[in-house]
């Protein structure tokens, strides 16, 4: 309405172009043989697929951090729970092809478990697990958020308890007896919905689903941010108490984005597992959640596109540096973080906005 439009026309065309290019990658990978100039190596495709999952997580984080001012240092837990929920299905789909040739996953055979524990009930259903992907992070976030927001926990206090939460979950999942494979987590998946997980076509499909989810989430988030609710969220960020005096109950607004964000993050995790092939508790380590925040910050928080750009650039650089300068890459990455904060206070997206202003 009276808002400057969130994305300019140029940004819209940019987004569309990016989507096209991204969508073309797996197609080129399948269509052209290795060696052909237009061939995209499958390594590249799986890398970009992984980055898109990270980008979705960063986008989710930006909704709470950038717009509602809630800094979560524990989003890794939602990501991982989504991943574990999907992982349960993938584990069941291994069937008897595990090393112990049992109906149970190898790690359960190993623990001498004879049946699935109750929380594995029905996880052989793909759709049930998809529901879990949404429900588990969603319900956890809702309950956690409800109590935290109701107690009016804010700022670093909130950040730290989210960190405590993810840390606690990490330790819990590290225990073998928790029933999620302990430190090794889930890996060695064989198939999804009957299709071999390592088949190029399956991979391309997963990739495209991820792309669609990312683009869809971007649109959804944009719609929310541009609605009046988006403005209420920003008011929560800036002056929550003032908002109460004009009649809004911040609790439900916060809870809404917080839960939405957790669900998006869970979906990101669910898409991540089959593409990366492993989920284990280290995804819930506090450092991982902080890294998500870093992606959003580097890209520019409160901009929707920024976190996506941030996730791609930080992870892209990390992938490239760790191969190209295995001994020096931390210097380079660290320096980039410092320079971004120093010279690009609004992140990469802010730089883009500045350039646009300077040469209209």
């Amino acid at each position: 309405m009276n808002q400057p439009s969130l994305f300019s026309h140029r940004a819209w065309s940019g987004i569309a172009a990016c989507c096209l290019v991204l969508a073309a990658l797996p197609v080129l990978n399948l269509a052209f043989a290795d060696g052909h100039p237009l061939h995209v190596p499958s390594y590249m495709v799986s890398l970009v697929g992984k980055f898109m999952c990270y980008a979705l997580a960063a986008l989710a984080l930006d909704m709470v951090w950038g717009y509602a001012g809630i800094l979560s240092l524990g989003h890794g837990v939602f990501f991982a729970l989504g991943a574990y929920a999907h992982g349960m299905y993938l584990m069941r789909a291994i069937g008897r092809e595990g090393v112990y040739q049992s109906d149970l996953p190898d790690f359960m055979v190993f623990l001498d478990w004879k049946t699935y524990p109750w929380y594995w009930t029905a996880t052989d259903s793909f759709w049930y697990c998809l529901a879990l992907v949404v429900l588990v992070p969603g319900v956890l976030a809702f309950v956690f958020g409800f109590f935290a927001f109701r107690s009016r926990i804010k700022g670093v206090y909130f950040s730290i308890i989210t960190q405590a939460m993810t840390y606690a979950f990490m330790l819990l999942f590290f225990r073998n007896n928790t029933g999620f494979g302990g430190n090794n987590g889930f890996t060695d998946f064989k198939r999804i919905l009957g299709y071999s997980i390592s088949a190029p076509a399956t991979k391309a499909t997963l990739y495209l689903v991820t792309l669609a989810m990312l683009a869809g989430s971007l649109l959804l988030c944009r719609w929310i941010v541009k609605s009046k609710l988006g403005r209420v969220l920003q008011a929560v960020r800036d002056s929550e108490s003032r908002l109460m005096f004009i009649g809004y109950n911040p609790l439900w607004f916060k809870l809404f984005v917080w839960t939405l964000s957790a669900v998006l993050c869970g979906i990101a995790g669910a898409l991540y597992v089959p593409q990366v092939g492993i989920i284990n508790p280290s995804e819930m380590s506090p450092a991982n959640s902080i890294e998500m925040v870093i992606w959003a910050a580097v890209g520019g928080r409160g901009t929707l596109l920024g976190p996506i750009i941030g996730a791609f650039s930080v992870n892209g650089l990390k992938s490239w540096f760790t191969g190209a300068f295995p001994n020096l890459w931390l210097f380079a990455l660290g320096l980039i973080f410092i320079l971004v904060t120093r010279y690009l206070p609004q992140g990469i997206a802010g730089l883009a906005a500045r350039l646009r202003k300077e040469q209209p």
Partner: protein
Amino acid sequence: ADTIKVGILHSLSGTMAISETSLKDVALMTIDEINAKGGVMGKKLEAVVVDPASNWPLFAEKARGLIAQDKVSVVFGCWTSVSRKSVLPVFKELNSLLFYPVQYEGEELEKNVFYTGAAPNQQAIPAVEYLMSKEGGGAKRFVLLGTDYVYPRTTNKILRAYLKSKGVKDSDIDEVYTPFGHSDYQTIVANIKKFSAGGKTAVISTINGDSNVPFYKELGNAGLKATDVPVVAFSVGEEELRGVDTKPLLGHLAAWNYFESVKNPVNTEFIKKWKAYAVAKKLPNANTVVTNDPMEATYVGIHMWAQAVEKAKSTDTDKVIAAMAGQTFKAPSGFTLTMDPTNHHLHKPVFIGEIRPDGQFSVVWKTPGPVRANPWSPYIPGNEGKQKL
């Protein structure tokens, strides 16, 4: 191509860098050594080093990159079991080769992996046997102390089954786990002390990584001496002891398939080369570098692979796998190690060493010769007859 590319996949940053960095260096040294002798099939080896940064999904990504992008013929790498598990599907999918140089919990056999570290029966079981022997102190009670993850949990499960088979009661076994990076061992050491009041006790430590130093410092300061309660560790070697004041640890034990202190010409040569390499490459603390078991396993693995390639006259994965069967190598441990034709594990000797004040180990027990690996522990029901690929 006029070179053969080999991948090196060890964390150079993050929590595992502490252990894995030196494996990368040993691998590079070994490759230099092979190249100096003319390479393999007349081609030089070219190492591609990447840093998976102690991040398991990154291990998988890097493995894929090495195989698919850099087209390496073989990868030497991984330390933790979870990093191995995370790259396994990649190696299977792309049908490539991984050489894994670290002792591990077993319960695994993969066509695409060669395990040059110890399986439980090549390390844990003999160590416990020793502790129960008269010479080892005749321990009757056991504290199984480990970091909370799969290697310690699995090892302890096997050990518990083994101890039971030897008539040790459950009440004489205490199993204790600490989180990764745990640094406060006051309570645990006090509890060990309490437990040991009930009879001759030994501690079997599968503590990994950073927690070892605080554990040993606490042990030393609490006055628990090796003559009272010996601790045998499976993840503590010369490299880890570099960070500890070992004087109070005199007599505590470790079980490995190699110690730097074993005396034989191959080892002398190996140590000399390594020290010279460290100085030449200006590695940090080059004048105090030590060798250890995973380093030896790396060294052996690379040489065996080179031999197999020569034999196969190809770097093709399946041909190399075939040629690996029965490969032998005169290892720094002083024995000639053989690659088992059926289970991809090495036949290795087992040594038990006591910590000396200088941070080295004096060998107090060893097997007469190399032992075949049982990756599937026979003490776990259902594992019978699984020892072959």
